[in-house]
């Protein structure tokens, strides 16, 4: 039995043999997950239903206002989108924005203490796939690492095994953000010590890996430090999304419509990130 579990451990960790059967195995335990999540969901529903009329009215008012502002912004956005499309057509570089997305709720169950994961209540039935990008209203949260039929696991960007290609919004320097294993710290290895970065710079997804769509905010640089004569600077960043207290997440569908011309344009930056 012990030999069997050692074999199992090696098979899963080294050779990833269970990638296809994980979906069935995960579906097997999802009833337990739903049962464990049920009480909290129940209390949440109750507390949502027990609101005063005044609070509801205030909230409605606030949402109406927000909606108005967002709609007004959107008017401009359509205009900009068209303009952008025309300009890109002139440059012969199309970029398609993924349109399909889905709201999912976090099941706040305990996960493995050594990894940073969240359990969400959507699975293969809803079309979730492995490596799917997950965001919330603030920025990138992570990607789907395991899929079950009705639940999935999201690996957060702060997990030590997670890396995501980014660029600095201010000046388009590309880098790769690695998780550090702590809840609010990210590392940027291999950034040259003379790179033009400073604290507070916003890092957005570059779309280079082909997995995350380009342009979503990921992190803000919190520290930029280098030793005299060292080749690489020490850069750390904090994620912009509040990872530990988000309740609703957004799943994005990436269509892999990454055209040749665009990758040709980005070839230069890809060279930089290849190091």
């Amino acid at each position, binding site marked *: 039995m012990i030999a069997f579990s050692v074999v*199992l*451990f090696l098979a899963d960790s080294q050779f990833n043999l269970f990638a296809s059967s994980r979906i069935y195995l995960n579906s097997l*335990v999802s009833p337990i997950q739903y049962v*464990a*999540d049920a009480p909290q969901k129940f209390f949440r529903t109750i507390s949502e239903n027990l609101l005063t009329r005044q609070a509801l009215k205030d909230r409605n008012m606030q949402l109406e206002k927000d909606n108005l502002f967002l709609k007004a912004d959107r008017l401009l956005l359509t205009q900009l989108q068209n303009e952008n499309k025309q300009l890109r057509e002139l440059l012969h570089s199309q970029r398609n924005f993924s349109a399909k997305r889905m709201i999912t709720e976090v099941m706040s169950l*305990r996960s493995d203490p050594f*990894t940073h994961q969240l359990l969400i209540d959507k699975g293969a039935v809803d079309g979730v796939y492995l490596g799917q990008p997950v965001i919330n209203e603030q920025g990138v949260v992570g990607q789907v690492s395991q899929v079950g039929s009705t639940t999935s*696991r999201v690996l957060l960007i702060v997990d030590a095994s997670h890396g995501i290609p980014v660029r600095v919004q201010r000046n388009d320097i590309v880098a790769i953000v690695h998780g550090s*294993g702590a809840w609010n710290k990210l590392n940027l290895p291999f950034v040259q010590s003379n790179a033009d970065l400073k604290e507070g710079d916003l890092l957005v997804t570059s779309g280079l890996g082909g997995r995350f769509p380009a342009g979503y905010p990921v992190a803000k640089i919190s520290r930029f430090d280098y030793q005299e004569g060292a080749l690489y600077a020490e850069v750390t960043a904090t994620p912009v999304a509040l990872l530990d207290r988000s309740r609703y997440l957004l799943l994005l569908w990436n269509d892999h419509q990454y055209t040749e011309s665009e990758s040709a344009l980005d070839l230069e930056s890809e060279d930089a990130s290849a190091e």
Partner: protein
Amino acid sequence: MPLLNSYRVIYSSFFIALIGAIYPLPLFLNAFRPDWIVLVIFYWVLALPHRVSITHAFVLGLLLDLLLGSTLGTHALIFSLLAYFVSIGYQRIRYFTMVQTTLLVGLFILFTKFALYWLASSLQDIVLHKHYFWSIFTSMLVWPWFFFFMRYIRQRFKVS
């Protein structure tokens, strides 16, 4: 059908332990969560070594691996080892006083935690937080009450 009845009670205790292991708690309480699965395995192997053995511990560990999303086989391996050691020495452990078994539970959970840490760190670099080990103390605190409660259950439902 006494056999079916016994297994019904045992399996429901497993199910409840699994729920207890993943039940959502606030972040600051999370570290104090007792290791219910270890306690349940420890109790049943000690009380009924002919009913609950390494196989059960293995399956429980596998389910926990799936529930927690850790690499398959980590908990399974450690729990089978745990069940093995308890089933070797159950005749001796039964004559221990409550203080001694509590200390033994603490020791077992300490080993479990170290083994889990070691297995996980062999795969990826991880950060060890101080409160990772706090659950040892809560588990030891819970163990006497848990033991008496389970014994009551066992006698009440005549599990043998």
